[in-house]
């Protein structure tokens, strides 16, 4: 292996300063050591790296996070409150037993990483760090390796049936300088099904990873609201491996956030499977910076699979949106149906959207398409609304909601979709004052 350039080596060692492979981590020890070796070999990302061209990772690789004050969230309703769900609460990355429900729900087994690594857990051992490691080719994801190596806790879920209620991982951010690393693992056994909700801001800076291994005919739904904290810095990764006829659906809502990099890495390994990833983000850079990056890599290595990416961003006052989406269709992955759309709505001339859609296809019988657009508010529609008496700011909000609604349509469950839509509306209303 080529030696790391000195700057990368130094930056990596600087990041590692004060981080130690945790003791007593049992069966995760080997995976953690391997991950640390990967990280050392790759080095932490740098903005000159091609994969970080549009997003400067400096804040994510600095030894310490930039302080980020928690938000007062007393003005908003609890998300998903009307849904019967099992809650697992992390406060600045630390499990809060008092605020969490008993980790017991029909159809699945839930344990925390910090607890389970002391015992033996065969199913998790096969996944922890393994999907992340697979996701490291052909592109390096050093922050994900860092996560596997140093994760302080997380949730391990093995789903054996149809889980009657969603599991929700609730993040709370209360400490200005918290810097949690959390790693979740989900194994969906054949024919099983789970809805996983992730809600809130995990810390001033956070690095989360989610590995999802879906066996044949399994179904996994993931709905995430990243909260509305302004200065927080986030790197998140989802790695999914899809068996035959399985379904993976993930939606993320992001309101505010100085820096967010959400990576989705999906691999089809069984035929006839389906993966949909979608995201809606709104950022207003007036008071605090907003930079949001969705990076998706989908590998089709099976026949007749469908992948779909729908990402929408509304940007204002110098906000920056990034989309990097790749569909790789391997030789033999015939009948692949790959669709990708990334769109931004720029509310002024200061904001920008940077998109890099990519298709790489080695099979001949496939239908793949991608599109990326940048647009402004439709003046005709705005005048039509105003001519009916709708004040301009409200008219604009209606058009913003309409723009994002297309991403929300990707959500299967109407109640969850409505809850997230309301979140967007509340965000717009607060700004209207």
């Amino acid at each position, binding site marked *: 292996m080529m030696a790391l350039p000195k700057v990368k080596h130094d930056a990596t060692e600087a990041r590692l300063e004060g981080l130690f492979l945790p003791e007593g981590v049992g069966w995760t020890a080997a995976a953690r050591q391997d991950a640390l070796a990967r990280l050392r070999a790759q080095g932490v990302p740098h903005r000159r790296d091609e994969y970080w061209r549009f997003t400067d990772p400096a804040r994510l690789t600095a030894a310490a996070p930039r302080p980020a004050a928690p938000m007062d969230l007393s003005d908003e309703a609890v998300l998903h409150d009307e849904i019967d769900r099992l809650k697992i609460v992390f406060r600045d990355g630390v499990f809060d037993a008092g605020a969490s429900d008993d980790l017991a729900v029909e159809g699945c087994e839930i344990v925390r990483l910090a607890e389970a690594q002391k015992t033996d857990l065969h199913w998790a051992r096969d996944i922890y760090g393994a999907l992340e490691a697979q996701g490291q080719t052909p592109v390096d994801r050093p922050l994900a390796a860092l996560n596997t190596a140093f994760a302080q806790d997380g949730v391990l879920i093995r789903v054996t049936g149809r889980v009657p209620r969603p599991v929700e991982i609730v993040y709370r951010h209360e400490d200005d300088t918290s810097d949690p690393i959390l790693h979740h693992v989900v194994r969906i056994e054949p024919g099983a099904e789970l809805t996983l909700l992730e809600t809130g801001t995990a810390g001033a800076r956070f690095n989360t990873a989610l590995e999802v291994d879906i066996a044949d005919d399994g179904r996994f739904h993931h709905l995430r609201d990243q909260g509305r904290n302004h200065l927080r810095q986030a790197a998140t990764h989802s790695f999914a491996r899809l068996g035959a006829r399985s379904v993976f659906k993930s939606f993320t809502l992001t309101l505010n956030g100085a820096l967010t990099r959400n990576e989705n890495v999906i691999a089809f390994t069984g035929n006839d499977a389906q993966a949909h990833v979608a995201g809606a983000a709104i950022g207003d850079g007036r008071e605090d910076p907003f930079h949001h990056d969705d990076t998706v890599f989908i590998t089709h290595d099976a026949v007749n699979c469908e992948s779909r990416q729908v990402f929408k961003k509304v940007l204002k006052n110098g906000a920056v949106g990034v989309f990097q989406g790749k569909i790789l269709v391997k030789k033999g992955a015939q009948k692949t149906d790959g669709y990708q759309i990334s769109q931004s709505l720029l509310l002024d001339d200061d904001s920008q959207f940077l998109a890099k859609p990519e298709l790489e296809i080695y099979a001949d019988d496939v239908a793949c398409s991608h599109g990326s657009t940048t647009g402004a508010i439709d003046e005709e529609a705005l*005048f*039509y609304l*105003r001519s*009916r008496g709708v004040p301009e700011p409200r008219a604009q909000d209606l058009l913003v909601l309409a723009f994002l609604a297309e991403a929300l349509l990707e959500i299967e469950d109407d109640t969850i979709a409505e809850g997230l839509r309301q979140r967007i509306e509340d965000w717009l209303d607060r700004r209207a004052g």
Partner: protein
Amino acid sequence: MLEIKNLHCKLEEEDKAILKGVDLTIEAGKVHAIMGPNGSGKSTLSYVLSGRDGYVVTDGSATLEGENILDMDPEERAAAGVFLAFQYPVEIPGVGNMTFMRTAVNAQRKARGQEEMSSAEFLKVIRAKAKEMQIDADMLKRPVNVGFSGGEKKRNEILQMAMLEPRLCIMDETDSGLDVDAMKLVADGVNALRAPDRAFLVITHYQRLLDHIAPDFVHIMADGRIVKTGGPELALEVEKNGYADILAETA
């Protein structure tokens, strides 16, 4: 009610005069029709009155009940009672018809210092009015004008007019593209709204709408001016002989 005096306007983007001195007074309770050849400035007049961007008023005035409307934002004009039924109603994907109408009704009420309509009351009212316009519940649920036929769009305009109860209703070629039944429906909708404190400015190419909506006055517009004013018989004359004679006699 509406008083337009010597109104001149040009395009914002280029130095092209469109309205070249329009004079028009409309009293409460009356229906005025404007006819005229294509490109004479009829739509432009409707846009300038409702506040669309892209036009600059270079001279003259327009007042509603004595209030200058030309300096108002479109939403302020709407709250003051101006309504334009668009020649080409705009499709707005993602915005539900119901949400749109409720937002509009309540925004206008708020602007006028009236109490907002409750959801239940709003639903009751809009359902009743939609039924009159033969607009079914499914159309109300769909995004504004998306997937509506030409006739459905026009009926939706009249429904909006009925919901908003404006003082001045401007209708820009609401009849074009409608079949006889749809036109009858639109005319009935308009006639139901006729009231002593409401006025209509109906822009049309055809006499046939005026058969159903009997106008009090008919104006002929040409090259940015109103060149002739008369009673309903003027529309019949246009129907029979076209504009050539009128234009020749006023040139």
